[in-house]
């Protein structure tokens, strides 16, 4: 136990040291702290994007879903691939507009594009609402990782508090520079651990990959493909679409993108990223390997699959390395989430209520809000009973509602009015929020619908309603918006 905890402590100290070193020689104003003064080249933006992609969800959620759900888990590779392909065209346009307008965050982007401060506040609220479950994922993961790697000596709740304090301190001292540098250590660790376990475990327990899958197919026929109902073809396709469109709508991914030096960075990333995320396959294979070796994990316990199998297989020093890699996969995305949430609350909500606040005061407010956001996430972690995989889909269904007003206005300016954009986002978010909070699905609301409609992801329904409302309200308010613009010009 002490061996594994010591190894994890060493990696934690190295990460904090990197965070401190990363800020040397830079005046930590808000622009440096949040988007690195837009000075990151292709390598660092790649590391931040990859750092964002390989989160606790990859480490525990991916293997947990493979263990609990089987074939449908492959949607993760699909949506990432399509999301990165889309970024080839979407992100250069976003970056160009942001640089011209001096935009630092996603709510700024919407407020500037639609010339509406209120829309900026609405986007900030949607952002925070979506980021909380995403932060909960990192904290839940930390709880599992530290508790399991300490062989139960540290309870999950103590581990969550430790994780929250470490992440808060880390992000306050180093900002995005620290996240980028720690991403290097984290990515090296995660590649080593996930690929190593993904290759070793099937061979150790089954002799080969094919033998493992054949035994699973024999024990659980049909588990390796999509089922006829539930997570069926229509669920798979709609979930892939919702999450691919939402991939760059996350405020922390959006913020990381704004730190790029030039727009070509995104095109290079769009070429490399689909191959890089094949590492996810090894995370799934670990989950599949656990099915017959540590059977019986149910509900949220499926997220323990990777650790339960590792504890059964390896010595404490290996568990320490796995735990350290897992700890870093929570620390980097967790720090990006906290930084994004606090920056946008300070810039778009605090500044809306205190319009005379100087940039320095907004910067102080942003850092002051980091522990507040972290505490809210801790509260939700202790009071939520969802698996990591479910939390991810919930968050994506919320942020994807920002995609239509972004895309429509980037394609052709003034096609959507600020009233239309606001109404569309509110309608889409309301549907997703109602479905999530009341656990209502299409199957519950309309039991007589055909199965392929009932299985659809609720996010796509929210998205469809969002587009209809946005277009209708824009058509109704177009005249009013034009009059307002000409009145202001006069």
């Amino acid at each position: 136990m002490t061996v594994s905890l010591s190894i994890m402590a060493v990696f934690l100290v190295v990460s904090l040291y990197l965070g401190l070193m990363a800020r040397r020689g830079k005046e930590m104003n808000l622009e440096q702290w949040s988007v690195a003064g837009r000075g990151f080249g292709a390598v660092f933006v790649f590391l931040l994007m990859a750092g964002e992609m390989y989160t606790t969800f990859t480490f525990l959620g991916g293997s947990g879903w493979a263990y609990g759900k089987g074939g449908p888990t492959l949607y993760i590779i699909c949506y990432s691939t399509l999301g990165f392909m889309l970024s080839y065209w979407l992100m250069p346009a976003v970056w160009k507009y942001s640089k011209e307008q001096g935009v630092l965050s996603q709510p700024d982007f919407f407020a500037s594009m639609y010339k509406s401060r209120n829309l900026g506040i609405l986007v900030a609220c949607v952002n925070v609402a979506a980021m909380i479950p995403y932060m909960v994922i990192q904290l839940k993961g930390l709880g599992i990782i530290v508790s399991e790697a300490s062989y139960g000596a540290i309870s999950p709740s103590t581990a969550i508090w430790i994780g929250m304090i470490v992440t808060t301190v880390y992000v306050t001292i180093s900002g995005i520079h620290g996240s980028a540098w720690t991403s290097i250590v984290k990515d090296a660790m995660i590649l080593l651990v996930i690929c190593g376990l993904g290759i070793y475990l099937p061979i150790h327990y089954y002799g080969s990959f094919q033998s493992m899958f054949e035994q699973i197919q024999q024990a659980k026929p049909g588990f390796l493909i999509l089922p006829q109902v539930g997570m069926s073809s229509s669920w798979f396709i709609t979930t892939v679409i919702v999450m691919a469109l939402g991939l760059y709508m996350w405020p922390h991914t959006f913020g990381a993108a704004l730190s790029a030096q030039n727009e070509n960075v995104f095109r290079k990333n769009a070429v490399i990223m689909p191959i890089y995320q094949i590492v996810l396959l090894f995370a799934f294979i670990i989950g599949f390997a656990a099915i017959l070796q540590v059977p019986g994990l149910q509900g949220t316990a499926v997220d323990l699959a990777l650790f339960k199998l590792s504890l059964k297989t390896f010595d404490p020093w290996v568990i320490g390395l796995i735990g350290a890699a897992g700890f870093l996969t929570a620390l980097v995305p967790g720090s990006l989430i906290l930084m994004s949430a606090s920056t946008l609350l300070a810039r778009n909500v605090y500044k809306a209520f205190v319009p005379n606040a100087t940039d320095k005061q907004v910067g102080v407010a942003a850092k002051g809000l980091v522990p507040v956001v972290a505490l809210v996430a801790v509260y939700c972690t202790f009071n939520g009973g969802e698996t990591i995989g479910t939390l991810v889909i919930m968050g994506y269904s919320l942020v994807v509602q920002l995609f239509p007003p972004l895309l429509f206005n980037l394609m052709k300016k003034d096609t959507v009015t600020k009233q239309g954009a606001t109404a569309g986002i509110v309608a889409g978010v309301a549907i997703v929020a109602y479905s999530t909070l009341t656990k209502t699905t299409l199957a519950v609301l309309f039991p007589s619908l055909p199965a392929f409609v009932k299985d659809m992801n609720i996010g796509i329904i929210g998205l469809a309603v969002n587009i209809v409302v946005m277009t209708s309200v824009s058509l109704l308010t177009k005249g009013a918006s034009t009059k307002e613009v000409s009145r202001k010009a006069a």
Partner: protein
Amino acid sequence: MKKHYAFAFVPVLAILLSPFFANRVTPYILGLPFFMFWIVSWAISSSVFMWQIYRLDHTYKEES
């Protein structure tokens, strides 16, 4: 839209329509069930298609 951007539709359609014609376990290819192999191979292929698009974008930019 530039003509060579149509390359992007190949992996997009192959992935989105995979439940209709690749949703089966056998044959195992490289030790993976067919459905898994199909998705992984198209994810890798999408990088190749995007590289082609990136390369042609640069070629046309230099020509103009």
